[in-house]
C-alpha cells in the first residue's frame, strides 16, 4: 500500500515540478509548486515525520506559497504569459541536467547504503527537546541563530519592500 502511495506521490511531485518550471503562466506555476510541496509533505508523512510534514505544510504551503502568490499578484497580471528561454538554451540546459542526473544516479546506485531496518516514530516532543537542549548534541545555539536570522530578514524584508519611494515622500514632507 505505502509503496503505491509513494509512487503516486513521486509521480505527483515530478509531474508538478516539471509543470511548475515549464508553465508559461505565473500563477499556475506557483500553484504547481504548491502541489509539489504538498507531495513532499506526503512523503514526510509516509516516513513518519509528522511534525516535519506539518511544518512543510504550514510554512511552505501556507506561508511561502502565499508570499509568492502575493508577489505574483502584485507584479503581474494574472493572465500574463511569460517569456521563455531560447530553445537552444533549453535543450542545452536539459542535456546538462540529464547528464547531472546521470552522475547523481550513478553515484547513488553505486553506493552501498548501510540501511538500518527500523520503525522508530519520532515525536514532536523529541524534536522540541533536541532543539532546545543545552547538552552535547543540543541545537539551542543554531536555534537562536535562526531566530535572529528570521528577525533580521523580517526587518530587512520590510525595509526593502518599503523602498526608496517612501523615503522620498518623507523627504518631501520634511
Amino acid at each position, binding site marked *: 500500500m505505502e509503496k503505491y502511495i509513494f509512487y503516486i506521490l513521486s509521480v505527483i511531485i515530478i509531474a508538478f515540478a516539471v509543470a511548475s518550471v515549464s508553465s508559461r503562466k505565473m500563477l499556475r506555476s506557483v500553484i504547481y509548486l504548491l502541489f509539489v510541496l504538498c507531495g513532499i509533505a506526503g512523503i514526510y508523512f509516509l516516513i513518519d515525520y509528522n511534525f516535519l510534514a506539518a511544518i512543510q505544510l504550514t510554512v511552505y504551503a501556507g506561508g511561502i506559497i502565499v508570499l509568492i502568490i502575493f508577489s505574483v499578484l502584485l507584479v503581474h497580471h494574472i493572465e500574463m504569459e511569460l517569456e521563455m528561454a531560447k530553445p537552444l538554451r533549453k535543450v*542545452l*540546459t536539459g542535456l*546538462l*541536467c540529464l*547528464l*547531472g542526473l546521470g*552522475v547523481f544516479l*550513478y*553515484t547513488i546506485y553505486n553506493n552501498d547504503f548501510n540501511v538500518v531496518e527500523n520503525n522508530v516514530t519520532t515525536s514532536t516532543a523529541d524534536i522540541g527537546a533536541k532543539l532546545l537542549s543545552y547538552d552535547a548534541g543540543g541545537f539551542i545555539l543554531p536555534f537562536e541563530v535562526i531566530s535572529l536570522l528570521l528577525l533580521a530578514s523580517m526587518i530587512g524584508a520590510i525595509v526593502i519592500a518599503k523602498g526608496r519611494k517612501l523615503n522620498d515622500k518623507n523627504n518631501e514632507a520634511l
Partner: protein
Amino acid sequence: MNISYTILIPLIPLAVFLLLGLNSKRIKPAISGYIGVLGLSVSAVLSFYTAYQYFFVSGKVDGVYQTFVNKSVWMNFTETLHIDMGVLIDPISIMMLIVVSIVSLMVHIYSRGYMKGDDGYTRFFSYLSLFTFSMYGLVLATNLFQIYIFWELVGVSSFLLIGYYYTKPSAVSAAKKAFIVTRFADLGFLIGILIMGYFTGTYDFETLNNPEGAVILNWASTSFMGLSVITWALLLIFIGGAGKSAMFPLHIWLPDAMEGPTPVSALIHAATMVVAGVYLVARLFPMFYFVEHGFALNVVAYVGAFSSLFAAIIAITQTDIKRVLAFSTMSQIGYMMLALGVSGYDGHEGVGYMASMFHLFTHAMFKALLFLGAGSVIHAVHSNYLKDMGGLRKYMPITNITFLIAALAISGVPPFAGFWSKDEILVAAFEHNKLIYYVGVFVAGLTAFYMFRVYFGIFWGKEKQYEHAPHESPLSMTGPLIVLAILSAVGGFIPFSELITPDRIGFEAHLNYPLAAIATGVGLIGIVLAWVFYKKENSLSDKYALAFGPFYRWASDKFYIDEIYLFITKKIIFKHISAPIAKFDKKYVDGTMEGIGNKTVLISKAIKGIQSGKVQDYAFSFVMGAVIIALVFIYLWTN
C-alpha cells in the same frame, strides 16, 4: 709669413650677416647697403694685402710658393682623424680670394642701385654677406670636411638668394631645384669624403696632396671593382664638384637659378660659386693627377669637354638673355674642367692647370660683367627676353660699351682677357688630347656666335616699343660695370704662369702663334656670322633654325634633360617609390599593428560574454563545472 689676420676675411662678412640678419627690420635700407659694402671692402682690402704679401713679398721660399696653414681642431673623431677649422693660404686660394672679393664687392655696390626700393633690401644684403662668408670659408678651407661644410653653406645661401623673391612660385621651385640637385651631388661628395677619410686617415689637404706623401704613393693598396678606392673617392668628390659647377648631367639647376635677382646670378651663378667645382678639382689636383695615373682626371676632362659643347649648343637657341648667359657659364666652366683634365704636373706640363685657373679668373670678371650688364638692360626694359629688346645702344651707352668688351673677352679676341686664358687652355688641350682640342676650338666659335647674337639682339637690331624710354642705369650700377670692363680688358696681362702652377715653381708662358691664330680666327668667324644673322632684323636666322629642324628644337628645349629628371623624380621616385611606401606604411605596417589590436578586441569581445553578469549563465557554467568535476572524479575513482 704671418697669416693669422686672414681669419678676419671671412669673419667680417659673417659679422655683417649676423648684424643685418638679426636686425633686418630695424636697420634702414640705405644704412644696410653701406654696412654691406663697407664690410666687404675691408675683407677685399685684406685679401689684396694678403695677395700682395704672398706673391711678391714673403710667399716664395727657394722659388717655390709655400703653403701656409693656420688651423685649430673643431671636432675630433679619432686621434688622427679630426675636422679642423682654419685658413690655408696658397696660390689658388689667394687667386680665389681676389676673385670673390672683386666680384662680390662689385655686386654689393651694384645691388645698392639694382635693388633700390625692394622690400627685403636689408635681407638681401644679409644673404649676400652670408654667401660671401661661406665662399671665403670654402676658398680658405684647410681640409675636405671644412670645404664640405662651406660647400653646403654656399649651397644654402644660393638657395636663399635664388628664392629671394619668395612669393614667386617659379623662384621657389628654382631655389628648391638648385638646392636639391646640388645636394644630390653633395651626397657623392660626402661619400667620397667618407671613403677618403677612412682609407687615408686624414682630411687634410696638405697631407693628401703631398706628391711624395703616403696617400699618393699608396693609392693602389685597396681596390674596389677594378679601380683604386682612392679613385672612387675622387670620382665621387668630383660628382660634388660637378653638381656645384653645373656639369652635365647635373647642370639642370643652373638655368632655373636665373630666377634670382640678377646681381645674385652674377655673383653666385657666374663668377664664384659655380666655379667651386673647378676649385675643388684644382685643390685636389695632385691626387687627381697621380692616383691611378690620372684616371679620374681623364673623366674630368671628358665631362668638361662634353658639358662645354652641350651648353654652347643650347645657348645658341635660348631667347632669355640670362639663360643664354647661364648656359654660357656652364660651357665656360666645362672649358676650365677640360683644361684641368688635360693638365700635367711638372713645369710647363702644368699649363692646363694654370690655364684653368687663369680662365677662372678672367671668366669671373667678364661673366660678372655680362650678367651685371644684362641686369642693367633688364632693369631698363623690365624683360628678360631678346624679343623685347633691340637698339638699346642709344639709350644705354655705358652698358653697351662694357657689354661689348665682355663679349669680345669671352669670344677670345685679343687683347682682351679671355683671349689669353683661352689660348692657354687650347695649347694645353692640343698638347695632350687632340679630340678635346677640336671640341675646344669648336666651342670657342660657338661661344663667339651666341654671345654676339645676344649682343646684337640687345643693342642693335630694330628698336622695340618700350613702355617708357629706357635710360642708362645710375652710377652705382654703371660704376661696377666700368671697373669690371677694365679688368676684363687688361686682366689677360697678369703673368699667371709665374704665380699659379701645380708644382708651385712657375714658368715663362709664351703665345703659341698658330694655335692662337686658329682660335681667334674661329672666334671672329662666329662674330661675323652673328653680325650677318642678327645685326639687322632679318629672316636668315629663322631659315637656318628651320634647316636644322628637330635638332634645333631639341637644343632649344635643352635636350629634354629637365624632362628626364622630372620623369625620374615625379614619375618614378614620387609615384613609384614614395607613394607606394606611404601606402605600404598605412596599409601593411600600420595595418599589421592595427590588426593585432583589432584581433585583441575581437577576442575580448568574444570572451566578454562569459562574464555577462547574468546569474543564470553563471549557474549554467557552475552546474556544468560541477558535473564535469564529478565525472572526472567518478572516472578517477572507478578506474
